[in-house]
Each structure stands twice: as structure tokens, then as C-alpha cells.
């Protein structure tokens, strides 16, 4: 490490003074200004930034909601209704927070799928990917505990069912469940600790997101071609090219978000959660929030209690070892015609699981859930390892710059410096 003040390149004297002592401006400039980024991102590469923005929105609305929320079984439901009715713009904060959870999962699902399609989990980005899976798990825990807080029927019974998953653990399972509850059923102690953890976990997520981005900035971003940049002609500075491209995606994203919040705020929720929790009456159809449905379907597909729980956790756990299951050296599915078909089938199986997770666990639905579950695991555990050996990938392009220029048609020399005009 160099001693003495950092030599800053900034002109503004205040910025320069701070930067010489704490080079945050240099850091930002390096990581988000001039950071060399592959020039060929498509709009799928927006979703990391969108997830980041959503996390900030969730934390901001959450902090303001918590100023009015009361984590007590007698007051929780009423305090939420008070937020909706009496607190100034309370309805807006709550609906943004509530639908923000759904938006967060939509964004993260697409972000993960982007990684699957373009092989972003492969060397050297294995750790980056695994940190992402950790974030996903933390998100699920946070979302689950957040859903309990309004203390409606679905809150209560969702909490009961999910905490009871742990009773499947041999020997110590029942003790763990009592420990989670802080009592002999889901009750006030449970609500209190869930509120506490629901407030805490997002900040843990922020920490892991920081590591996720730090790891990203070591390896650099993957890109739709899945080949490494070979030189400066293959990269562009992050700013302004990707800051503005992310901004375009962000505005479109906000429009979808706004339609949900302002015109169909309860569309993704369940009406039963507007019935105050009643520990004596289980609603006829209990379903988790839509983003848990695929995993819920896997749980129900197995006739054995422990087996179902194990398989459900394994459906996410398998993502941790994915970098070693996929043995193909080619990252992007663009050049893997066979694997691409199997991945699209996997995507279908994911949606089928989501659909069947909301259906009653009986008859044909169980068979469908089992088939989809089987394929979900088959893809990761058998198909990918085999395809790495058997598949013949298409020839990879020479470099990133070449196909972009080729796709853009013949350009006159020096066109790089001339701004193009759109009519």
C-alpha cells in the first residue's frame, strides 16, 4: 500500500480534497465510470441494476412503513389498515412495498435465467454466481417473513406451514420448530421475531450484494456471446453507455411497477390475507405467494414429508454446484443448439411448477408436478453434465467487436467518431 495522500485527478477542489484522503470518487470513477464493459450487452443485462434499484425501494418503503407498524398479534392487522387509511400516503408506501416484493422476484428470476442462458455461472464467475444464490435465499427468507407481518389468514397459515417444514428434520425437528416459534404455535413471539428479522435481513442482503458486485468487478461481466473481451476494441466504458441503457430499462420497469401499484395493487396477493389471522380456522386453499409456487410444487410432488422438504431445498441448493455440473466450456447458449432446447424445456418446467403449485394437490396435478420436478433436476444433474461431453457447439466468433460490427453492416472508416443521427 502506498503511504501518503492519494493523488486525485479531480478538478473540483472539494472533491479533490476528499478524494485525496478517501478515494471514493476515484473508486466510483473506476468501477462505474470508466469500468471496461463488453460492448454487446442486450437488455437482459439491465436486470442486475433493476434488482439493485428494487432493493433500495424496498428498504426505503420498509423503513417508513415500520414507523407505523405494530408487531403484535392484537394490533398488527389494524396497524396495517391504519397505514392504508390514516397515514399520509401510507397506502402508497404499502402497495409499493407489497408489489415491490413481487417485482423484485420477477427481476431476480429473469436475472438468474439470464445467467443460466448465457452461462454466467461458469469459470471464472463461480463465486459470483454462488453469492447470487445466497442473495436469492436471503430474499426468499425476507419475503416469507414480510408476508407474515400483516397477520392475515395467509400470513398466519403460511407461517405455520413453512415453519413446520423444519419438523421434517429427524430427531431434533420438533424442537427446532418450537424454537422458531418461541412457543407452541405461531403466535406473538413468532410475529415479533419475524418483524425483527424482516428488518435485519435486507441489510444482510445489501452486504452480500456488495460482495456480489465486488466479485463481478474482479472477473468483469459476461456477455451475450459468452466469450472474453480480447482487447479495448471489445469493451466500452460503463458510463455513459450502460448507465443510460440501464436507465431506459429502469423507466420501462417503473411503468410495469406503476401499473401494478396504482391499478391492480392486490392482483398478485391473496384475498384471504385481508381476513385477520384466526388460529382455529385454516382457509380452504392455502397457497404461498406466487414466487414460491414452483418450490412449493416440488415440495408437494414428493409423497414423503422429509423427502419433499429435502427436494425443495435441493432445488435451490443445486444452483450452488451448477458451475461444476455444466461441463461445457462454451458459456452462451447461442452456440449450444442442443443445450439451448433443454434449457428452454427447463424454463417451461419452471412455469409448469409455478402453475401447478397453485392447484390443489390431487389427481392429475400431482402427476404433472412430479414430471416437472423430475425434469427440473434431470436438467441440472444429468443433461448438463452429459451435454458438456456429447454436444458439438457452434463455432465461436473471433471476438466481441467483430460480430457487432458485422451485424451493424459495413461502416466507413472513422465512423466511430461521427455521431449518428436518428431522424
Amino acid at each position, binding site marked *: 500500500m502506498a503511504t501518503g495522500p492519494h493523488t486525485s485527478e479531480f478538478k473540483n477542489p472539494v472533491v479533490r480534497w476528499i478524494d485525496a484522503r478517501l478515494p471514493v470518487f476515484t473508486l466510483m470513477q473506476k468501477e462505474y465510470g470508466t469500468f471496461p464493459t463488453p460492448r454487446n450487452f442486450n437488455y437482459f443485462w439491465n436486470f442486475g441494476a433493476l434488482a439493485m434499484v428494487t432493493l433500495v425501494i424496498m428498504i426505503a418503503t420498509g423503513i417508513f412503513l415500520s414507523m407505523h407498524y405494530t408487531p403484535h398479534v392484537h394490533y398488527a392487522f389494524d396497524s396495517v389498515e391504519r397505514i392504508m387509511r390514516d397515514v399520509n400516503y401510507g397506502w402508497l408506501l404499502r402497495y409499493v412495498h407489497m408489489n415491490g416484493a413481487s417485482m423484485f422476484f420477477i427481476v431476480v428470476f429473469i436475472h438468474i*435465467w439470464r445467467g443460466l442462458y448465457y452461462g454466467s455461472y461458469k469459470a471464472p464467475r463461480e463465486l459470483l454466481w454462488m453469492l447470487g444464490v445466497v442473495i436469492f435465499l436471503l430474499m426468499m427468507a425476507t419475503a416469507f417473513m414480510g408476508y407474515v407481518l400483516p397477520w392475515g389468514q395467509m400470513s398466519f397459515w403460511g407461517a405455520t406451514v413453512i415453519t413446520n417444514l423444519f419438523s421434517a428434520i429427524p430427531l431434533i425437528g420438533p424442537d427446532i420448530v418450537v424454537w422458531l416459534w418461541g412457543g407452541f404455535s405461531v403466535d406473538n413471539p413468532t410475529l415479533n421475531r419475524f418483524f425483527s428479522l424482516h428488518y435485519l435481513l435486507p441489510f444482510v442482503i445489501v452486504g452480500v450484494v456488495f460482495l456480489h458486485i465486488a466479485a463481478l468487478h474482479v472477473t468483469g461481466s459476461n456477455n451475450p456471446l459468452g466469450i472474453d473481451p480480447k482487447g479495448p476494441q471489445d469493451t466500452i466504458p460503463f458510463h455513459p453507455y450502460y448507465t443510460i441503457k440501464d436507465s*431506459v430499462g429502469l423507466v420501462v420497469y417503473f411503468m410495469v411497477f406503476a401499473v401494478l401499484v396504482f391499478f391492480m395493487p392486490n392482483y398478485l396477493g*391473496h384475498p384471504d390475507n385481508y381476513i*385477520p389471522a384466526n388460529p382455529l380456522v385454516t382457509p380452504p386453499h392455502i397457497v404461498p405467494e406466487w414466487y414460491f409456487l414452483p418450490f412449493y410444487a416440488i415440495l408437494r410432488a414428493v409423497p414423503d414429508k422429509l423427502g419433499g422438504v429435502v427436494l425443495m431445498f435441493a432445488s435451490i441448493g443445486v444452483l450452488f454446484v451448477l458451475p461444476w455440473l455444466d461441463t461445457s466450456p462454451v458459456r452462451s447458449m447461442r452456440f449450444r443448439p442442443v443445450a439451448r432446447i433443454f434449457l428452454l424445456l427447463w424454463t417451461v418446467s419452471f412455469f409448469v411448477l409455478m402453475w401447478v403449485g397453485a392447484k390443489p394437490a390431487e389427481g392429475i396435478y400431482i402427476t404433472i408436478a412430479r414430471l416437472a420436478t423430475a425434469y427440473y433436476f434431470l436438467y441440472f444433474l444429468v443433461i448438463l453434465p452429459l451435454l458438456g461431453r456429447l454436444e458439438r457447439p457452434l463455432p465461436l466468433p473471433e471476438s466481441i467487436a467483430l460480430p457487432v460490427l458485422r451485424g451493424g453492416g459495413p461502416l466507413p472508416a472513422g465512423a466511430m467518431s461521427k455521431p449518428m443521427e436518428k431522424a
Partner: protein
Amino acid sequence: MAVFRTTLKAAALLAGLLSAGPALAAGPTVPLPDVRFSFDGIFGTYDRAAAQRGFQVYKETCAACHAMRQLSYRNLREIGLSEAEVRAIAATVMVMDGPNDEGQMFERPARPSDRFRSPFPNEQAARAANNGAYPPDLSVITKAREGGARYIYALLTGYTDPPEGVELMEGMYYNAYFPGHQIAMAPPLNEGQIEFHDGTQATVEQMARDLTTFLAWAAEPELEQRKRMGVRVLIFLTILGGLTYAVKRRVWSDLH
């Protein structure tokens, strides 16, 4: 063109996720009647006169069994009642207050800031008085039932004689839209049972529509402000989106 393809794919993904919504819950078995309300659609607002009539129906009919504990009398200002009218309505109800200086609870006429008085002190009392059935709180009822306002309207107008072969249990009534069709609530609305202040004919359909409007307002008092704000936000975002996209094209133009 790759960008277009991927964008389309993203849109398809989103659409898929959104369409998973209605699949979440098994809806009522009978299709609901296709009624329209003043508060439907992105510019919808509550018909104030209907909501006021609906409040009258609630007060004279439903309030005997159903609480609306999330509402205060002051909220009635929002459906167009004057300060004096709200005061007068509140003053006709006695609410519990206290303890006073002697440590006793006492009853006093309600003020606008008081919550709607519940007909029963607790769920047990409500069940005891209603043959074991619990008349649910109506504060958020249109949000708490699959089908929302449309379902409430259907339920209120859906009482019929049981079809051939259906044996009703003691004290139950047949309703085409209630899950299981056997409901403990007697038909609450009967032709002409209310004399509306504004002279509207009190048919069952009219009362059901007015009551539903009132209940929808009670459940979502923020609806008008929300939709108004939503329209503005979307207009703003459309313009901002156009501008941002134009900047993006310009920034990227020197790369191509």
C-alpha cells in the same frame, strides 16, 4: 435484431408471471354476474350518492350483525356527508369510554373521531347470537373475497330457492354464489325495506349495488387518489421513457 428478440423474450416472461396471478386461487364455481360499477376502470370514482345510500343500507340492515371496525364516523365525510351530518350520525350511537375519575367505564354519544361501533363485543358473543356463525367484519370485505365487489353484489342478489334435491341444513339459506351454497345469513335485502332519503326506489338490485359501492369505498378509500396518481405517474414515465430512449440512441450513436 438480437436485442428485439431478447426484449420480446423478457416481455413474454413477464407476461407469463403476471398471468400466473389469477391461477393462484380456485375461484368461486359459479361465474359472477357481469355488473359494472362506477369505480371500475382506470378513471373510476365512487358514485357518492350510491355510497351514501349504501351507508344507509348498512346502518339500517347490516350493522345489527356486521362490524366495520376499521372505519370511523369522520370517514363518512369522504362520501360527501357534511361535518354536521357526520356529527349527527355519530351522536345517535352510544360508545364505551373511560375510565373516568372514579375508574368506571361509561357510555357517551359517539364523536366523529370514534370508530364505528361493533354490534358485538367479541367473536364469541357474535357467534352466540348468530347460531354459531360469525358475521365477518365488513371493513375490507371487497378485498377479502375472491371476486371482490362483483362477488359481494352477486351474493347479495344470489338468494334463490334450493334446486331440486338439495337439502338445506337447519337455519341455512341457499345462495347461488356462496361457496358450498349454504349460507347462515338470511336474505338481508328485501324489496322496499329501506326508505332512501333521496327517494330512490329500494329494489333489491338497487340496494345491493349501493351497498356494494359503500363497502368498496370502505375497503379502498384511497382508490380515487390512487388511480389519479397512477395516471399522472404513467404519463410522466412515458415522457421520461421517450426522453431517456432518445438520449440512449444519441449516446450509443457514436459506437455504431
